C-alpha cells in the first residue's frame, strides 16, 4: 500500500464531514430564520407595541443568532475565523460600514459584531409572509426607489446609527479588482459620516456568487474579518469642489484601502 493513501483518505473523510457539517449549519440557519420569521417576530409585532423596543430586541436576537451560527460552523469544522479590530467596532456610532463582499456570509459576520447596524435589503421581503415580520420588526431599509433609499440612509447615519453597505453592490468576482460604485461614498458625504472599512478575506475561497454552497473547498476555510481604522469625510469635503468630486475622491480611498490587501490575479 503506498504511503500517501492514509493522508489522502483522511482528507477525503474530512471533506465529506465538512459537506455534511455545511449542510447541517445551513439547515439550522434556515430553521432558525423560519422560527424567528413566522413565530417569534410576528409575536413581537403583536406583543411589543413600542417600535424602538421591538427593534432593539429584534436586532439583539439577530446578532445573537448570527453569532451562534458562526460558532456552530466553527465548532463543526466548516471554518475557522479571525476577527480583528473589535474595539473599533464597539465604539462606532453613526459610521458607514463599508466592506468588500467575497462570500454569501459576510453580512452574517458583520451583524454578529455590529448589533445596532442598519442594512438595506430587498424590498420584496416586506411582502413575503416568511420575512415580513422580521424586516418590519428590525426596521431595515427596503431597497426600492434609489433616491428614497439614499435619503433614508443619510437620515439613519445622522441619527447616530451605523449602516452597512457593500459598495460593490453584489459579491466580488474572485481574483478581480473590486468594482466600487460611488453611491456609498455619496451617502457618507451627504451625512457627514465617518467610514469604517471592513476587510473580508476567505482562504480558500468559497460561497462566491458563481458557486453553490455544496461545492466544498479542499480544506477547512479560514474566514478573516478585519475592522480597519475609521476614515473621516470632512477632509474630502473640504478638499473637493462639490459633493460629486468629494464622493469620487472618498470612493477611491475606500476602494484602495480595501483593495491593497487583496490578491488580484486577473
Amino acid at each position, binding site marked *: 500500500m503506498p504511503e500517501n493513501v492514509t493522508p489522502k483518505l483522511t482528507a477525503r473523510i474530512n471533506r465529506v464531514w465538512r459537506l455534511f457539517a455545511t449542510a447541517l449549519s445551513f439547515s439550522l440557519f434556515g430553521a432558525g430564520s423560519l422560527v424567528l420569521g413566522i413565530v417569534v417576530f410576528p409575536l413581537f409585532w403583536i406583543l411589543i407595541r413600542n417600535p424602538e423596543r421591538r427593534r432593539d430586541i429584534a436586532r439583539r436576537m439577530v446578532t445573537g443568532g448570527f453569532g451562534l451560527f458562526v460558532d456552530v460552523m466553527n465548532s463543526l469544522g466548516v471554518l475557522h475565523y479571525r476577527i480583528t479590530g473589535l474595539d473599533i467596532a464597539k465604539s462606532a456610532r453613526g459610521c458607514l460600514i463599508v466592506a468588500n463582499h467575497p462570500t454569501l456570509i459576510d453580512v452574517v459576520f458583520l451583524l454578529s459584531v455590529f448589533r445596532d447596524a442598519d442594512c438595506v435589503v430587498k424590498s420584496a421581503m416586506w411582502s413575503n409572509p416568511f420575512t415580513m415580520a422580521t424586516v418590519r420588526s428590525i426596521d431595515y431599509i427596503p431597497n426600492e*426607489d*434609489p*433616491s428614497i433609499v*439614499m435619503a433614508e440612509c443619510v437620515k439613519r447615519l445622522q441619527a447616530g446609527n451605523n449602516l452597512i453597505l457593500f459598495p460593490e453592490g453584489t459579491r466580488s468576482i474572485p481574483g478581480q479588482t473590486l468594482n466600487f*460604485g*460611488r*453611491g456609498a461614498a*455619496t451617502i457618507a458625504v451627504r451625512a457627514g459620516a465617518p467610514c469604517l472599512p471592513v476587510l473580508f478575506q476567505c482562504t480558500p475561497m468559497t460561497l462566491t456568487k458563481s458557486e453553490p454552497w455544496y461545492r466544498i473547498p479542499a480544506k477547512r476555510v479560514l474566514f478573516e474579518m478585519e475592522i480597519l481604522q475609521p476614515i473621516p469625510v470632512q477632509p474630502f469635503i473640504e478638499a473637493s469642489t*462639490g459633493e*460629486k468630486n468629494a*464622493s469620487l475622491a472618498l470612493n477611491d480611498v475606500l476602494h484602495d484601502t480595501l483593495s491593497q490587501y487583496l490578491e488580484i490575479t486577473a
Partner: protein
Amino acid sequence: MTEQEIRDQVSAILVEQFEIDATEVKPQAHLYDDLGIDSIDAVDLIVRLKELTGLRIPPADFKDVRTVDDVVQVVTALTANS
C-alpha cells in the same frame, strides 16, 4: 407644460446643478458618454425633475434613457398621462 418648457427645464438643471457647459447640452448628447452624468447623478436628476414638475416619476421609466432628448420625451409622456 409644453415639450419646449420641459426641454428648457432639463437644460437648466444640467447646467446649474451638474455644472455642464450650456453649449454641450444638445438633444442628442449622451448623458453618460458626453455629459459625464453617472448613476448617482441620474438619481439626483430624477429628484429635481419630480420637484419641478410635481410628477411621480417611476425610476423604471428612466431605464432606457440615454440622451438629453430621451429625458425630455419621458417627462413629456408622463405630463401628458397625468
